[in-house]
């Protein structure tokens, strides 16, 4: 009975959030699929990772917030740490006009251990209602969106004891638990949508 009530309240919560954009990503719903090229030109499909947890990181090498995290290794450290537990980390660059060469330069400059996908038409950003770089999404093994929002609680980069929402969610999922904080407000530069 309790789990049904929880399930029902999650559905209601999911219905009331992100309700501004119908037919788009919503917590508790299947994550929108996509097929994008990575920085080497190889096609990457979300469906390639069926049965695995996937982290999406909206990325723009021209944004100082992306750069701050790239330099301090926030995302790289998590990507490396959770790779061993079968978690896939994908960067997505939806900046209008950003091509594979731009993403190749960024991967090299920051020694990224994950690919950066080319979404320069901003279609996937639109499907996920991505607002900022970074904007983080976690997809569970069943393909449902279970987290959307900020990487952590430290938007200005000065906090001593910030909560890393992505690490917390991944730990909960790996322990077979539900994500306790499914949605937070993302921070960073605006995603530079194609008009």
């Amino acid at each position: 009975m309790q789990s049904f009530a929880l399930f029902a309240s999650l559905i209601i919560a999911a219905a009331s959030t992100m309700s501004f954009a119908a037919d788009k990503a919503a917590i508790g719903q299947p994550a929108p699929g996509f097929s994008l090229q990575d920085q080497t030109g190889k096609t990457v499909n979300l469906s390639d990772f069926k049965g695995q947890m996937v982290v999406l990181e909206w990325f723009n090498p021209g944004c100082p917030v992306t750069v701050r995290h790239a330099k301090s290794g926030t995302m790289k450290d998590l990507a490396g740490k959770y790779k061993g537990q079968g978690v896939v980390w994908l960067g997505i660059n939806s900046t209008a006009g950003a091509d594979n060469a731009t993403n190749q330069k960024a991967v090299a400059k920051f020694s990224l251990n994950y690919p950066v996908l080319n979404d320069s038409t901003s279609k996937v950003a639109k499907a996920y209602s991505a607002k900022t770089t970074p904007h983080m999404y976690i997809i569970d093994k069943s393909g449902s969106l279970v987290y959307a929002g900020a990487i952590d609680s430290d938007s200005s980069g000065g906090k001593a004891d910030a909560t890393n929402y992505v690490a917390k969610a991944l730990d909960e999922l790996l322990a077979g638990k539900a994500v306790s904080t499914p949605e937070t407000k993302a921070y960073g530069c605006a995603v530079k949508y194609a008009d």
Partner: protein
Amino acid sequence: MVRITTGFILALCLSAAALAQEDRDLVQARMIADIAAIQPAQPFTVGIHFTIKPDWHVYWKHSGDSGMPTSVKFNLPKGFTASELHWPVPRAFSQPGGLRDYGYENAVVLLASITPPATLKLGANVTLEAHAEWLVCHKVCLPGDQKLTLTLPVGQPDAAPQQSEFAELVNEWLARVPVDAKSPSSPVKVEVHGQLPPGEFKVIVQPKRDFLRDVALCPLPPDSLTVGQIEVHPDPAGATITFKASLLAGAKLKEPTIPIVIGFTDPADQRRGVVVNVPLRSEPKP
């Protein structure tokens, strides 16, 4: 594997240097005060005056869908206290993808009231310090910061306050800080309808006299709420604004109200604002 050539490294260094120079041209900040001399225990107003390159903007205390709020941290001598920052009414910036941010273009003066201690040495100099940090954006965003100082002499305790050359500028921007919509000095009447759930709200803004132009809504939602789909429907005197508020997934509503700032241009062509606390739930039944 990208071959790192000297040319590549040089290009990176040059572009970094070019960016640093450009950064200084984008935002300049200085600290000003409305008085020329400090008097013991007499509060005065300090302003952080930002001059922003045209087309670029810095952010309001709630930046909106993206961006970073401008921050000012004061470092004052012993016995001096600063009020919280007073933010003039911002403007809304719309970006592709339906993103909406709040901030300032061209110039803004952020204000605070400083209260000196009761005992000060006549003729001494007092140095006030502040550290301003911001994100300035146009097509790209650049972070910036500046350490500011202002040194003022201590004046006669019982003399009339000496206004500085910046008093007019400070007062001009003080007039743009939103006032409580319910206060007698509010030039408008505001009526609010709606509750959460379902989260659909209507705000009716009417002037007490004449008419208003360019009415805008700038919300200050807590972390648990998003506010969107803001639509302004102007009428001959004022406007009706509708918006939607919803809880983030898994979040609990802790706040009974959400503050919103309503900006408008008054008949004297001055940009002004009011702040309204929008109740989120109807009164509980006894």
